[in-house]
């Protein structure tokens, strides 16, 4: 994992936190739980076929949910209330609702339509969108729920709808069908009771996984025979997989390697034979078939439903991710509060002044404007309150509904550009980038620190076996026999070679100690042996090792009936019975197999990280190998140590018993297994070590600090200790000073912890995590922006990420170009929205000083309503989608530009004040310009006079033109769409005004706008004034743009000469310490 501060300071710091999935180390001890008694509360008992098992005490029917999947949120009946409720929970919507209600109830100057219509529009659009999405979910649910399945009832095959499956039903599934619920595999129609399953639809992994039937029920292959089975299954109550729960982060490292064994599951089956004596068998993930997975290469299977409907692992894991909010969104809320404050202040000032003004009787009630009886009778306090509300309503446009609509639309539409970008298209996997959330587009332009997983992210995850050492002797670059190929370069291996037996043992270990499968093609078994073998494994390391062994003459031929077949150097086939596999996990960081040779010897082979293996072998063997391992690690290879031990038959008996016992445990199975494993993997003999190269995408890179997981755990986890905080801050300080920090051998949990630690730094920097494997999910979820690589390690990371791209190299364009542009666009959008509404409302506020604070609106209701919806909405939307203030190529090639917008630069106080003052200036110009214009006797040569509506219309016209032209001035990238929208909006305004004033509208009481616009335009002075006022309003902006341009030009010149000197000093030529990672440019990235 790597942390790259993007712009904090030169030199850019890289903090590399490296993790090898194979050799990450256990750091936090599992929370100690009482492993003694098994509690019954957390388990459920399922009776196979719903046949009660005689002999058991009272049959208590447990109630389970049915097999209906409900991913939809609404039904036809509750859609309206529920959706409305949820929409009005958003503060903005609620605010607008309040304004609307005030307008309806209190006699306010603007009609409820002005705010009701936009609100209605927003609510409707959102409701339609959500309704449609929910309809899609309903349809998908129905497809799943109504699909036909076959259930065995009374020894007959009964056809049913999927949703009718009950827990305990025996289900028959045919090849290429998906499992309708979580099933325990009882039997498949193969002799060994295995079946192949692909989980492509769940996590994108298309390789087949083997699942095993319970041993005692393998034979029950027909509907009749399976019906005779009497068994009860005890298993845990459904619970989602732990890695989803971020709040229980301390448990994250339990997260199973999805690739290896599927989700966590433990259970026990009690089979009652005729003798009524129960036989208990353990159930594990390998017996569990998940809903949503597909049966492959197997004719049919019988399984018993254990979890149904919403209790299936799939449904439980289908939970919305916690919502991430971008920095821009937080700024919007801050601005909102400022503007809300302005609004309240304005309303309060106006109310106060109104009552001050009315304190003289002739102002309170002049003879020409007498109060109605009702008005005289109302309480003064009440009147003041309604006045306050009225002013609020009058000025409420300062916080526009439409901004939220536009922001949403901008985000939604804008995110398409990422998935459309053909630069992100990768031919190998035939896919482009994927956007899982559009809420964080702009956050891509704000990243301070990058955390990256190394394996598969920075590297290609295509591994190659480079060398090995056997008993301290180095072997390298072999193509034929081992004999005579020992390298002579190292001082240790000079004319020295390991014992032949040891060599063979080592190679056998490589061939046996793994979970690699042979891809079964349609061909007959015989063919696979001769033809090219295709190895499949979730871990590319293992394949590299098996292939490496092959180069030395030992070929793994696959599993047959529990026997691993290996072809040795003499082309003889050796068979080993696979007794146990002690699976790899991130905590133990090693795996073992126990096999039985043809001669009957029982051997244990173990491979794992040096730190996990060295303590478990006899000491004197370590030294020689250790040197090798360390040298290889320095060269950036992934190293694994191989050890073995012989197990005496007696010991094996004991081990076997312990293992089975642990596997049977219902509670705390993992801890128990771990303990047994621990006991077994001791006192081994070290044979050697391997080095595998993981090809990196790019070139070398230096690091400032290298720290490994166990040290890190001291820093992070020594909790409750005041000194730990001290360590933490020292660690952080060192990190800040480094270009890059490399953290190796970490548990997934630690990745998240590191991210969280950096996230909580002063100034809360924006973090980005990028990774490709399930072990990166925690950090992807933890950081501000999570990016998944659609790599070889499955789709877990991509599915949990906010954005996913095919390759690490795509990050560059994603951040530098897309992120930068999105940020600039949305920041401008937000500023512009507040600006244009302040311009809009300020004249209205000023007008109150000239109309006795009587809440007389300056603009007609139609203008009030249409301003944000029609006249000024599209240009800014087009701008915020299309603007490229700097072209994409320049952005990608000059990372310095990215630093310019760091720290939310465009939404800081400075720019905000600039926009606010600009708006205030313009609003004042509009109002007073027109005010002075109106001081003349007449604006027309025929002496006719204009009224208040003409005044408002002139102000409004100047406003619309200024605001639109201001955007035109800001636009640097004029596509035909911009032209169309900007000039179109202005034309529409003129057209609308003519139209609105051209007709006596039958539904309006007041025809106040009738011919106002046309009459206004018949005056030459008005034309001249409008043009002048627009020009004056824009003048500061024009000057600023011109000056900026001058400055930029000189700055560019400075830049180019600085760059020249930079290239001279170049990069210090220190030998790369550990890894090859970022490219030269991405160093400054």
């Amino acid at each position, binding site marked *: 994992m790597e942390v790259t501060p993007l712009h904090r300071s030169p030199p850019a710091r890289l903090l590399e936190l490296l993790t090898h999935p194979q050799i990450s180390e256990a750091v936090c001890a599992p929370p100690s739980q009482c492993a003694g008694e098994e509690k019954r509360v957390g388990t459920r008992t399922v009776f196979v076929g719903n046949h009660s098992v005689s002999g058991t005490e009272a049959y208590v029917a447990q109630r389970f949910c049915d097999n209906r999947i409900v991913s939809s949120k609404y039904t036809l009946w509750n859609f309206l209330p529920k959706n409305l409720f949820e929409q009005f929970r958003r503060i903005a919507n609620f605010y607008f609702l309040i304004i609307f209600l005030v307008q309806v109830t209190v006699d306010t*100057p603007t009609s409820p339509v002005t705010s009701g219509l936009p609100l209605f529009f927003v609510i409707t659009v959102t409701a339609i969108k959500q309704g449609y999405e929910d309809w899609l979910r309903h349809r998908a649910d129905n497809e799943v729920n109504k699909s036909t399945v076959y259930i065995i009832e009374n020894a007959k095959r009964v056809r049913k709808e999927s949703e009718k499956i009950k827990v305990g039903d025996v289900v028959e599934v045919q090849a290429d069908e998906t499992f309708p619920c979580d099933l325990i595999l009882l039997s498949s129609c193969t002799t060994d009771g295995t079946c192949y399953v692909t989980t492509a639809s769940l996590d994108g992994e298309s390789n087949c996984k083997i699942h095993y039937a319970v041993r005692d029920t393998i034979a029950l292959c027909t509907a009749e025979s399976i019906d005779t089975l009497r068994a009860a299954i005890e298993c845990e109550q459904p619970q989602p997989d732990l890695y989803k729960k971020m709040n229980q982060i301390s448990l994250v490292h339990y997260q199973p390697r999805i690739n290896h064994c599927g989700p966590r599951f433990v259970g026990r089956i009690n089979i009652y034979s005729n003798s009524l004596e129960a036989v208990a068998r353990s159930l594990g993930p390998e017996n569990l078939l998940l809903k949503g997975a597909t049966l492959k290469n197997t004719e049919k299977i019988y399984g018993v439903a254990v979890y149904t409907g919403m209790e299936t692992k799939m449904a439980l894991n289908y939970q919305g991710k916690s919502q991430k909010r971008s920095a821009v969104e937080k700024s919007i809320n801050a601005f909102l509060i400022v503007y809300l404050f302005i609004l309240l202040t304005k309303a309060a000032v106006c109310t106060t002044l109104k009552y001050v003004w009315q304190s003289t009787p002739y102002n309170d009630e002049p003879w020409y404007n007498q109060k109605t009886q009702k008005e005289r009778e109302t309480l003064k306090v009440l009147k003041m309150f309604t006045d306050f509300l009225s002013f609020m309503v009058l000025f409420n446009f300062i916080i526009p509904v439409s901004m939220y609509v536009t922001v949403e639309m901008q985000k939604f539409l804008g995110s398409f550009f990422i998935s459309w970008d053909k630069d992100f298209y990768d031919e190998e996997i035939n896919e*482009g980038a994927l956007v899982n959330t559009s809420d964080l587009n702009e956050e891509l332009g704000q990243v301070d620190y990058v955390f990256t997983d190394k394996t598969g992210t920075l590297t290609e995850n295509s591994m190659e076996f480079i060398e090995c050492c056997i008993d301290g002797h180095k072997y390298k670059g072999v193509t034929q026999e081992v004999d005579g190929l020992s390298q002579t370069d190292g001082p240790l291996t000079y004319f020295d070679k390991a014992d032949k037996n040891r060599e063979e043992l080592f190679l056998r270990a490589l061939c046996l100690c793994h979970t690699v499968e042979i891809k079964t093609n349609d061909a007959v078994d015989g063919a696979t042996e001769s033809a090219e073998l295709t190895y499949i494994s979730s871990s590319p390391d293992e394949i590299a090792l098996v292939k490496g062994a092959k180069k030395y003459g030992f070929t793994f031929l696959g599993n047959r009936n529990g026997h691993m077949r290996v072809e040795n150097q003499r082309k003889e086939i050796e068979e080993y019975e696979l007794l146990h596999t002690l699976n790899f996990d991130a905590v133990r960081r090693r795996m073992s197999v126990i096999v039985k040779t043809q001669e009957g010897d029982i051997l244990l082979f173990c491979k794992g990280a040096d730190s996990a293996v060295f303590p478990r072998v006899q000491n004197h063997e370590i030294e020689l190998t250790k040197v090798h391992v360390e040298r290889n690690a320095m060269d950036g290879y992934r190293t694994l140590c191989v050890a073995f031990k012989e197990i005496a038959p007696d010991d094996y008996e004991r081990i076997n018993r312990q293992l089975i016992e642990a596997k049977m445990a219902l509670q705390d199975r993992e801890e128990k297994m771990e303990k047994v494993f621990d006991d077994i993997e001791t006192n081994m003999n070290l044979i050697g070590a391997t080095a595998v190269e993981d090809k990196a995408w790019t070139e070398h890179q230096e690091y400032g600090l290298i720290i490994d997981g166990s040290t890190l755990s001291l820093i992070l986890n020594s909790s409750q200790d005041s000194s730990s905080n001290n360590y933490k801050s020292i660690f952080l300080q060192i990190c800040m000073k480094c270009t890059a920090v490399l953290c190796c051998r970490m548990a997934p949990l630690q990745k998240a912890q590191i991210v969280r630690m950096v996230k909580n730094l002063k100034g809360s920097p924006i973090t980005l995590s990028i990774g490709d494997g399930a072990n990166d999910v925690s950090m992807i979820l933890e950081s501000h922006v999570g990016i998944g690589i659609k790599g070889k390690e499955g789709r877990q990371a991509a599915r949990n990420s906010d954005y996913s791209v095919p390759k690490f190299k795509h990050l560059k364009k994603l951040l530098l170009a897309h992120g930068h542009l999105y940020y600039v666009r949305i920041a401008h959008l937000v500023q512009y929205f507040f600006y244009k509404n302040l311009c809009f409302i300020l004249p209205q506020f000023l007008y109150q000083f000239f109309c006795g604070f009587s809440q007389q609106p300056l603009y007609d209701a139609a203008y009030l309503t249409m301003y944000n919806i029609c006249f000024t909405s599209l240009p800014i939307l087009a701008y915020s989608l299309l603007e490229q203030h700097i072209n994409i190529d320049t952005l990608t090639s000059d990372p310095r530009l990215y630093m310019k917008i760091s720290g939310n630069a465009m939404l800081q106080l400075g720019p905000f004040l600039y926009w606010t003052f600009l708006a205030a200036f313009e609003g004042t110009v509009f109002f007073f310009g027109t005010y002075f214009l109106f001081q003349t*006797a007449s*604006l027309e*040569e025929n002496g*006719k006079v204009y009224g*208040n509506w003409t005044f408002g219309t002139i102000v409004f016209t100047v406003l619309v033109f200024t605001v639109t032209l201001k955007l035109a001035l800001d636009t640097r990238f004029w596509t035909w769409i911009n032209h169309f929208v900007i000039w179109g909006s202005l034309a529409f305004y003129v057209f609308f005004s003519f139209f609105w004033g051209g007709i006596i509208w039958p539904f309006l009481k007041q025809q106040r706008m009738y011919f106002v616009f046309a009459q206004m335009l018949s*005056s030459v002075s008005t034309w001249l004034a409008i043009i002048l006022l627009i020009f004056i309003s824009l003048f500061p902006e024009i000057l600023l743009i011109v000056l900026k341009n001058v400055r930029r030009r000189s700055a560019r010149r400075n830049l180019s000469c600085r760059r020249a000197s930079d290239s001279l000093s170049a990069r210090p030529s220190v030998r790369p310490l550990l890894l090859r990672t970022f490219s030269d440019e991405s160093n400054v990235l």
Partner: protein
Amino acid sequence: MEETPQHCLSRLPDNSALKQQELPAHRLYFTARRVLFVFFTTGIFCLCMGIILILSARSTQEIEINYTRICANCAKLRENASNFDKECTCSIPFYLSGKMMGNVYMYYKLYGFYQNLYRYVRSRSNRQLVGKDVKAVEDCAPFKMSENKTPIVPCGAIANSMFNDTIILSHNINSSVQIKVPMLKSGLTWWTDKYVKFQNPSSKNLADEFRGTTKPPNWPKPIYDLDKKDPRNNGFLNDDFIVWMRAAAFPTFKKLYGRLNRTHHFIEGLPAGNYSFNITYNFPVTRFQGEKSVVLSTLTWCGGNSLFLGLAYTVTGAITWLASFAMMAIHITLKNKQMSFFHQ
């Protein structure tokens, strides 16, 4: 992977200009020459415009005579609403030093009269004014109905407070001969007001049509008696009424009262000499501490004699020029620096 190229193609994003953000676009580049050219032209335009406007405004004449204090006794009388039926006239002599050429317009101007109060602006009935339903008074509070529950025509606060002074301008050729200056009371309104928004009920006899209604409380006579001589200036079509009904934007405002009928003696405008306004003082302004005056004005193509627009243009033009000179200076210094930079 069985899926063939077709599948591959479908996943490859479209290579369209829009989707790749590569729409052909025009970028704005500011070259110094272009910017300076635009600035100088704008400056010239503004300056020229300003000078023209100032000259035109200067060519007009305007006389304003405030008669609030001059007619103090009348003002005093009107302060008490109960004296509404007592007539009060007031004559204000003045001397016109130069002749007013061309069309002369007479305005009355009110100070401190808030025609733009929210409730006031709304207190009118357009349905009534358009002649469709003279009894439609819903929006006219507090002047909807008289005390005996008959609808008021025209209803509402605006109509009720209509300016009702009579102003007659006389030209005193010498101490004995006084000629009444002929004033036209037509063409004072917007065309659309007179012909669309305000209509009398269709009947010939207006008084019949308005039967069953009451005049506004402040009015001395009903609407159908506003101008008995000219039926096209009577009822809702009365120009003074229509002018009043268009609410002014600010508390100080002028409204057109009449225009000079250029016949006989006044064919060229108002000749210089002694004039007097004979005012029938009805409209109370001192009650709200307001003032009123009469304005005589000539107009040009750009309206009245306000210098604002002309000055604004001139100042803007000057500033634009200043800015462009400053920019030129910056440009030249930068250019010189660049030269030296390269010479090194």
